[in-house]
């Protein structure tokens, strides 16, 4: 199949945030001047530890809270001066469930479509399309409260799509979703993105961000501490730690020149490898010493390693 072209891809900015600040009513400054640009067609990760301000940014974009200062525009439409046009372009999957638990699944979609001015017959067609795609069609008559947690998440995705937004924002859409469904959600989101929908995603599963997203921003304490492409970010990683499982137990830590090696237990060796070092060399040295490796894995997800470094560094500078 020929890849779809992205007619909107040429220099169109899907989301532009300029010096965004938010101070909550209790005086807490949750956002301290955020700048963010997401190009149309992108699959963008917004990462950060708990309480960093991700949901606050998203709530401002989606008009759920009022900002204290700054500008936000969606596909060039300013959120203050062209709010209705901007709203029409956004689909939101919030972090917390926010539908009427007593309403049947299909009615939730129909009503949401109605709020966007979609006539009823078209709304029913859209509801059918998205409920089927998200595997909820059998549940269309059930009240929302009878859905499982994973189904409720998918319901929110279906609801966010009924008006076919150009920018889909998902706030931890896969929290509490089992592996199989998470994978099928990834496939679904990739397909939507391939068809031209810009996606912004927050998640605490970093392998999810690594596998889905092309660009990334990391936010901590209400500030963006990194904004780059996934590829560039990962290439910053200078060392990687590998965990090797050995055939025979060892008594002492082997000496492997050029590598930092430590023994976890008799059969588990951890080796720190610099980016420019070759693995062939490591393995030949080990086999010369009669050590045979049964299997090998990364100690942690590569992005996780970077993420922790970055956040640690920023906390240091913020608290100073």
């Amino acid at each position, binding site marked *: 199949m020929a890849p779809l072209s992205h007619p909107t891809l040429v220099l169109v900015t899907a989301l532009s945030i300029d010096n965004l600040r938010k101070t909550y*009513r209790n005086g807490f400054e949750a956002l301290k001047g955020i700048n963010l640009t997401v190009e149309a067609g992108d699959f963008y990760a917004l990462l950060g530890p708990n309480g960093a301000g991700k949901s606050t940014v998203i709530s401002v974009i989606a008009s*759920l*809270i009022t900002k204290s200062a700054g500008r936000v525009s969606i596909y060039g439409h300013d959120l203050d001066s062209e709010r209705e046009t901007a709203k029409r372009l956004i689909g939101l999957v919030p972090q*917390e469930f926010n539908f*009427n638990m007593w309403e049947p699944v299909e009615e939730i979609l129909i*009503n949401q479509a*109605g709020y966007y*001015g979609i006539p009823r017959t078209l709304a029913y067609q859209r509801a059918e399309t998205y409920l089927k795609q998200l595997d909820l069609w059998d549940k269309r008559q059930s009240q929302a409260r009878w859905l499982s947690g994973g189904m409720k998440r998918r319901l929110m995705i279906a609801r966010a799509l009924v008006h076919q937004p150009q920018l889909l924002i998902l706030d931890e859409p896969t929290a509490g979703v089992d592996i199989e469904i998470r994978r099928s959600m990834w496939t679904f989101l990739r397909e939507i993105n391939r068809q031209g929908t810009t996606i912004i995603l927050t998640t605490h599963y970093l392998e999810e961000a690594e596998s889905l997203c092309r660009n990334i921003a990391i936010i901590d304490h209400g500030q963006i501490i990194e904004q780059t492409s996934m590829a560039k970010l990962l290439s910053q990683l200078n060392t990687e730690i590998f965990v090797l499982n050995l055939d025979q137990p060892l008594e002492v830590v082997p000496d492997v020149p050029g590598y930092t090696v430590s023994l976890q237990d008799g059969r588990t060796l951890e080796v720190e490898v610099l980016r420019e070092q070759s693995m062939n060399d490591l393995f030949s040295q080990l086999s010369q010493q009669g050590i045979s490796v049964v299997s090998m894995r990364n100690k942690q997800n590569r992005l996780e390693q970077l993420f922790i470094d970055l956040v640690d560094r920023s906390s240091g500078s913020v608290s100073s």
Partner: protein
Amino acid sequence: MNFWRVYRIAFQTIVTKEILRFMRIWVQTILPPAITTTLYFVIFGKLIGERIGEMEGYSYIDFIVPGLILMAVIQNSYANVVSSFFSTKLQHYIEELLIAPVPNWVILSGYVVGGVTRGTLVGVVVTIISLFFTDLQINSYSITLLVFVLTSILFALAGFINAVYAQSFDDISIVPTFVLTPLTYLGGVFYSISLLPSFWQDVSLINPVLYMVNAFRFGILGVSDIDLVVALGIILIFIVLLTLFSLSLLSRGVGIKN
């Protein structure tokens, strides 16, 4: 995209959702006022009313019927909006409306029309019940209908404001219990204020419900303690004030947005 078409569909969606909500729970919304007013008719109208004799030239039951109908309308228009909008807030599905391109006045009118629809439905049910106890002759259909609808709108708006400020379920029952019920009971539903000493007559005139009950009674019976034009003027002023206040609450996001 035609904005007016969008607004119309959004408005219809809110109204339909509101009607479905109170119809689904009709045992809690339509049945109780029917039972309560039947009891009023039996006890005050028949049993006690026959001993009271006439009021303003009408049998007691005929005199209280307009007030009882209007009381049901007031309570139900109010109750519908206050409980529906409060749960919308409490369960956060107000966010479905906040993210959508729906202007505040569409949201407000959707909820108000929902409340007016329940008020009307209950009003019609109570009127039908009253026909078993008295034969209602309507003096002026247009005035009756006008007062009925305006009163319903006014209390639907009041219910909306209550819901915006409410933080808990207690907050949505405090106003009906401590404000609405006393105002209606003292608003000339059961008596003509001409029976009161002149001081208390003057005090009664502060009560807005008095104007509505009397205007409605004028529509049905053709008698009133109050000048009709004054009554309608006061109702309209209240509607305008409450509408402006509700819209300003919505645009400031009071109780809704952080």
